[in-house]
């Protein structure tokens, strides 16, 4: 790890001012992605700006049919939150499947969604649950947020402050975990908003996306059989030593079927 200066601001304003003032700053949340990246010298910021001292980035708030989760909320706290379990159990279940216990005790929602790893779990929830991503100055709808591999709508120096999820009537998330890291080789979240179906897919492409062809068919008929009638093309899908693009396309259907089966049981 290269040497860097360390800062621990106590407000978003102060953190953003620091980012502007330093030569090459990077924000640090749970560090479960950034610290390994620094160790491998894949990033060499002159200044690391720790967001852990900023109280306004924490907190879980339930309002009507929405749940707002602060960016600095750790995966374990989302998994264990009685409030989220009550109104949006699919999000707690998803958070409880991220990595392992030690990673969940440190990693945060904001870190995961800001980073937008193609195999991260939360992005599937962001797109399928019609979420809104908030920063200090604006809100970004889920459909406009994920751009490409590790690329989001966030500008350099912009801090993700919280994410507001809509609570569906029922929903289920299923993933095919990489057996070593537990990252999603493919993960699918199917959400039913009183008949309006949204399907969020992670792991398959460069970033999370909505599977609109599957959504259309499932709106007509919400059943496992209906999934079978849809062609999922593998164009643009990721291909690596863990899975070919073709296999990932196959997994999108299998995980969708499993999620639909779970959702119908609930």
């Amino acid at each position, binding site marked *: *790890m*290269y*040497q*860097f*200066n*360390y800062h*621990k601001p106590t407000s978003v304003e102060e953190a953003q001012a620091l980012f502007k003032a330093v030569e090459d700053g990077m924000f*640090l949340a749970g*560090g*479960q992605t950034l*610290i*390994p990246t*620094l*160790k491998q010298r894949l990033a060499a910021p002159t200044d*690391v700006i*720790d967001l*852990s001292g900023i109280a306004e980035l924490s907190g879980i708030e339930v309002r009507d049919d929405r749940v707002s989760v602060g960016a600095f909320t750790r995966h*374990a706290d989302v998994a264990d939150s009685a409030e989220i379990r009550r109104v949006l159990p699919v999000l707690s279940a998803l958070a409880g499947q991220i*990595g*392992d*216990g*030690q*990673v969940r*005790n*440190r990693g945060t929602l904001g870190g995961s969604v800001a980073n937008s790893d193609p195999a991260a779990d939360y992005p599937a929830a962001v797109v399928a649950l019609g979420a809104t991503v908030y920063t200090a100055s604006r809100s970004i709808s889920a459909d406009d947020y994920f751009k490409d591999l590790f690329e989001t709508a966030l500008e350099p120096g912009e801090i993700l402050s919280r994410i507001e999820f809509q609570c569906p009537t029922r929903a289920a998330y299923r993933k095919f975990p990489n057996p*070593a*890291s*537990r990252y999603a080789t493919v993960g699918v979240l199917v959400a039913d908003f009183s008949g309006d179906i949204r399907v969020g897919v992670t792991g398959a492409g460069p970033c999370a996306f909505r599977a609109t062809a599957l959504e259309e068919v499932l709106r007509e008929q919400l059943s496992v059989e209906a999934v079978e009638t849809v062609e999922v093309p593998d164009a643009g899908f990721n291909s690596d030593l863990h899975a070919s693009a073709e296999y990932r396309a196959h997994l999108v259907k299998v995980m969708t079927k499993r999620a639909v089966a779970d959702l119908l049981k609930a």
Partner: protein
Amino acid sequence: MQISLTVNGHDHTLDVPENTLLVDVIREHLKLTGTHVGCDTSQCGACTVHLDGRGVKSCTVLAAQVDGSNVTTIEGIGSTENLHPMQQAFRDCHALQCGFCTPGMIMSAIDLVENVGVQTNQEVREGLEGNICRCTGYHNIVQAVLQVARAGTDQTQEN
């Protein structure tokens, strides 16, 4: 930079470079070498310690991030004369061979029993996903954790 930590009940104030990892403070500065570094890439869990009561991989935490926190390492849970129940269970069940992964396994196992409340074989196996052992084959490790988890419940049932 200066950081203050309570480690195994003792307060320490240290002057360390900004890029110092928590595991390096523990091993190099405080000479508590029971915490091991297996992979240094956040995969193996050999470096697991308790940070304010919860298991974390100390190779993936900066010392600066945890200034003011409470850390417990394997040295802080028991002694050779007076083993922690989890250490005793690992001994009883032959849950180690070379012992390299053991400090991390035990720290994770204590977090699982005390905070997660694992009770079944499957729950223990899932709970230990962040800890890799290269020699015992996990079976005896799972038995040891279950022995402690179930002893806790048995006692409550008896009382």
